[in-house]
């Protein structure tokens, strides 16, 4: 009756083996490494970069214990922190000869030093949160109202030119809060205006207002359009942040959206918050200027004699380009940039949308400069970069601009990204900041580890003393629980924080409850005169219902924390919930399997090593 079928033992064994494999990487620790990744969207890190890294290090005689390429970039594993610093300096010099204009991010990093076969299985050490490894955490709030206002302003400018084009007389167009108000003198014009708007502005919702000679048409953005603008704004800001953070040289930055209008930025290992904030808060601007193609001017500029009113830039392909200083258009006029395809040639292309004022200027400029080149520059920190420099083929009106020709889909995507980055959709504000020094992080790990270890030791000592062999089994089950929990955390790569470690400790402290329940039940059955085998059987069976109930109530609390918690609470809740689930398995199934292995096969079992059983002489209540 106390025997498990073979498959149950196999499941337990399999779970233990898997648990062990995925826990293993945590024991190997991490070794110092240097990571080289691209600082620019237009630059890709590939096998050639890998070669370059390897040869650079070999030539300088720096020994590395492995270089490889992954989605983040090239990573070099090194044997100690001294060589790590040396390698970083070397690679920095090699990859970024001009320190003022970094092309690559060369950052210090840590790599799991577990053997290759483990990494190939996807077994990685637990992902440590910022409070354990040190770094900066920012929560940024995107000013959606600002984004909307900007959009509505550009829409009202569009409406003005639309009315003019269609020769509809209106008494003024203006933005009032989050709506656009268009005034008309008579009903007929208003109907005409309404029809025109309905045909040309699908994003707007229109309503009539006013009477007599003061008629109004109220235009508001449709909810779908509103949502699209907000989503675009946050995506655009995240993209911009990505580009800027690259400059900080952070190995594994985390940039994620939180809620509808917030962005979390986590920079592990960064200590210089002032610089980080400076870079995050910086605004990039986009400028469209004409290319100076006076014969001989470029050659003169190359020789050091830049003509008056022009500047020398380098194009993406590496060719020099002479650009006039006079700005034709700025990024404010650009409302969107998307990668796509040319309708006729099916070539990759970038589609730009300009607002009405921008379209008018663009139309004039293109009319006067057919056959010439224009340059789109991204200006950041007073330094410009040529994003693209297309040739003007015809006059372009209507504000829809397409840049195409000799670019891949990838390049079109990158260009669109850069163009959008130049016109940051909405202002952002830092609403939460957390900086944790590296020493504090290491200290937190030790403290968390010690708490768990001593707590575990105390519980083990007590359980074994009190329940003898059954205590040993309970402790083994508890150890299995710890193993499963750490394996799960490593497998899921859930972020482990200090509250998370506290949750591990607490999970162990609570998980022992199940074993206490079982052991007490078995003792009680023995006290009531059951045979040892029957006592084990009923003890486990009866305790299970109680264990389930009590764990579910605890789980309810955990889930509530998971749903509503943020930051440290969430870190706690994740581990807490996982801990409850693993404890159900380990306390009931694993401990039963052990007990069955020990006692299950003995037919004539006289007694159980579960500590002293004391039988009272008379009982008030005897359960039957």
């Amino acid at each position: 009756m106390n025997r498990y079928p073979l498959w149950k033992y196999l499941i337990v064994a399999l779970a233990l083996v898997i648990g062990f494999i995925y826990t293993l990487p945590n024991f190997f620790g991490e070794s110092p490494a240097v990571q080289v990744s691209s600082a620019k969207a237009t630059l890709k890190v590939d096998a050639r970069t890998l070669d370059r890294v390897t040869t650079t290090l070999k030539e300088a005689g720096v020994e590395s214990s492995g270089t490889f390429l992954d989605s983040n970039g090239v990573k070099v594993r090194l044997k100690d922190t001294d060589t790590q610093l040396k390698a970083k300096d070397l690679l920095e010099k090699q990859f970024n000869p001009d320190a003022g204009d970094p092309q690559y991010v060369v950052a210090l990093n840590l790599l799991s030093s577990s053997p290759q076969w483990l990494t190939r299985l996807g077994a990685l050490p637990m992902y440590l949160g910022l409070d354990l490894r040190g770094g900066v955490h920012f929560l940024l709030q995107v000013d959606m109202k600002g984004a909307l206002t900007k959009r509505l302003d550009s829409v009202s400018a569009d409406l003005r030119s639309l009315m003019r084009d269609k020769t509809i007389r209106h008494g003024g167009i203006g933005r009032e809060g989050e709506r656009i108000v268009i005034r008309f003198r008579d009903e007929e014009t208003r109907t005409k205006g309404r029809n025109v708007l309905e045909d040309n502005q699908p994003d707007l919702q229109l309503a009539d207002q006013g009477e007599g000679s003061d008629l109004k048409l109220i235009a508001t953005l449709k909810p779908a359009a509103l949502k699209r603008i907000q989503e675009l704004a946050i995506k655009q800001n995240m993209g911009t942040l990505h580009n800027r953070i690259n400059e900080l040289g952070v190995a594994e930055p985390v940039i994620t959206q939180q809620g509808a209008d917030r962005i979390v930025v986590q920079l592990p290992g960064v200590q210089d918050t002032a610089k980080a904030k400076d870079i995050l808060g910086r605004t990039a601007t986009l400028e469209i200027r004409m290319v100076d193609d006076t014969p001989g001017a470029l050659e003169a500029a190359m020789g050091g004699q830049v003509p008056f009113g022009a500047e020398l830039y380098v194009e993406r392909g590496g060719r020099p380009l002479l650009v006039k200083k006079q700005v034709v258009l700025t990024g404010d006029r650009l409302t969107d940039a998307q990668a796509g395809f040319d309708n006729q040639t099916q070539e990759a292309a970038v589609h730009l949308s300009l607002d009405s004022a921008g379209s008018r200027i663009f139309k004039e400029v293109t009319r006067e400069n057919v056959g010439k080149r224009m340059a789109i520059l991204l200006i950041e920190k007073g330094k410009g970069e040529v994003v693209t420099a297309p040739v003007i083929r015809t006059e372009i009106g209507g504000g829809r601009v397409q840049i195409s020709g000799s670019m891949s889909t990838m390049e079109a995507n990158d260009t669109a990204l850069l163009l959008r980055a130049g016109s940051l959709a909405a202002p952002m504000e830092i609403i939460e900041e957390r900086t944790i020094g590296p020493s504090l992080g290491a200290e937190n790990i030790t403290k968390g580890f010690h708490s768990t270890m001593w707590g575990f030791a105390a519980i083990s000592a007590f359980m074994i003393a009190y329940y003898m062999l059954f205590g040993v089994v309970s402790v083994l089950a508890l150890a299995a629980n710890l193993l499963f929990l750490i394996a799960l955390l490593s497998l899921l790569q859930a972020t482990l924080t200090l509250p998370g470690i506290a949750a591990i400790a607490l999970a162990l402290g609570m998980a022992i409850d199940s074993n206490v329940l079982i052991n007490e039940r078995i003792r009680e059955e023995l006290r009531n005169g059951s045979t040892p085998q029957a006592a084990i059987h009923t003890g486990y069976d009866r305790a299970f219902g109680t264990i389930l109930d009590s764990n579910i109530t605890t789980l309810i609390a955990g889930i509530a924390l998971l749903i509503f918690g943020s930051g440290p609470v969430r870190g706690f809740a994740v581990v807490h919930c996982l801990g409850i689930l693993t404890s159900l398995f380990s306390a009931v199934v694993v401990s039963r399997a052990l007990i069955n292995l020990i006692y299950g096969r003995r037919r004539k079992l006289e007694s159980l090593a579960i500590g002293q059983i004391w039988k009272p002489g008379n009982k008030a209540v005897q359960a039957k």
Partner: protein
Amino acid sequence: MEFFRIKNDIPFMRHALVFNVISLLTFLLAVFFLFSRGLHLSVEFTGGTLIEVNYTQAANLEQIRAGLGKAGYTDIAVQNFGSSQDVMIRLPLKAEQSSTKIGESVMAALNAEAPGATLRRVEFVGPQVGKELAENGSLALLLVIVGIVLYLAMRFEWRFAVSAIIANLHDVVIILGFFAFFQWEFSLSVLAAVLAVLGYSVNESVVVFDRVRETFKKVRGLSTPQVLDHAITSTISRTIITHGSTQLMVLSMLLFGGATLYYFALALTIGICFGIYSSVLVASPLVMWLGVSREHFIKPKKQIEGANEDGAVV
């Protein structure tokens, strides 16, 4: 080894009134302190800036205060944190000041007046975040209460659900009362501990209720108080051992976890101690007064006669 050698059922219910009066008094006292003193909320809830610095020698708090005062900071709290070398500085939110620069300017002021400080941790929380956290905390509490009541009502009986939640909410209030009385810092992790304790103590009541149900079903001719006494007596050894074990772990956190985990562990300790008391000695009498009786468990059994009733019955 066996600690509990109880011959007869202990007549807990005879003293039910006394236990509940004690509970009520503690509860009222906690409420009183909550209102008169209020919680000492952490920066996470109030918004503001928290800076933790470390000195190689014992820090001179007066000097730090004076230095920061000179730099134009008013309404600051400077205190030791964990050891005499660690100092925690709290600054309130200021509308006119650029919040993002505070960390650096405080460090500059410290280096001028009380040199030798290394920055360990900066936390800045804007006003909108704090408000949201308080809201989410209350929502989480509400969800836990509703979830547990529903589950217990489904699994047992509404009387059990109501008594369990009352008994355990009273624990929560008492924990908060302690935090108000001693003006310990109430942070997000303390909130997490409070909610975890709520789930944990309810599980204590569940174990007792399980026994109550079982006794009602199996033994005839006992009055309700006798059934409750029997249930409590037969689970008391498990109650003490379980909580003792959990407390061992929490104690370890209290001793080795450092300043960050200190209040977290403290909240758990109070929660565990009062959890035993309330779930056993408060929840059970409540069930009794709400009028639970044998019929509540026998009737449905007859209706589902022949059905598989074995699985969930303990």
